[in-house]
């Protein structure tokens, strides 16, 4: 891929950050080679309201938990998961 290539990912939000943001999903274009951490940093810059939720955020890509260093691919579904509270 060239230096200026971009990929598109779908980002899902739940619970408190979803309410703070006012939306449960957005499409984002990011440079090819971006990691989950790059994406989260970008989201924090563009949506400062997310700031207080990112400390304990877990992230899933295509329905599986991943680490912050995971490189994203075009078409990935990235879920921002605050601490869970089922049961």
């Amino acid at each position, binding site marked *: 891929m060239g230096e200026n290539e971009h990929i598109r990912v779908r980002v*899902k939000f*739940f*619970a*408190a950050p*979803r309410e703070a943001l006012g939306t449960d999903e957005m499409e984002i274009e990011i440079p090819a080679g971006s990691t989950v951490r790059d994406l989260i940093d970008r989201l924090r810059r563009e949506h400062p309201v997310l700031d*207080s*939720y990112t*400390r*304990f955020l877990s992230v*899933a890509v295509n*329905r*599986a*938990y991943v680490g912050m260093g995971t490189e994203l691919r075009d078409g990935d579904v990235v*879920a921002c*998961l*605050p*601490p*869970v*509270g*089922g*049961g």
Partner: protein
Amino acid sequence: MKRFQITTDPLSVDDVTARAAHPAAGAVTTFVGLARGETDGREVRYLEYEAYPDMAERQMRQIGDEIRDRWPTILETAIVHRIGRLQIGQVIVVIAVSSAHRQDVFSATHYAIDRLKQIVPIWKKEVFTDGEEWRSEGVDEQGHGS
């Protein structure tokens, strides 16, 4: 009948027990989670549950796999979690674990509910008369540990 499911419908313990059925089963243990009307002395009016359903069902299936690895005597595991608005006293989640004999079903069911609270993407909002709060075991709304 799915063995692992997120649903907005009311839950039945008999139904989930049947989902863990196996011809060789002689013992089933269930865990039933109920909506409580009080948290830290504050009156709760009702609860709102939200999930990432596809991933939640996948994670619940993983819990079933983990149980089979840890306790080879376990025959089947079924987990059904309700989402949406829950009134006080209503059933939130039912877990059923079957085995030929009773020896491991209690440990396995205990493990299942502990794991569900750790790795399944489901969230709970408590609605009070004077406000509301997203709740996680050990972490409050702002994400601070408690």
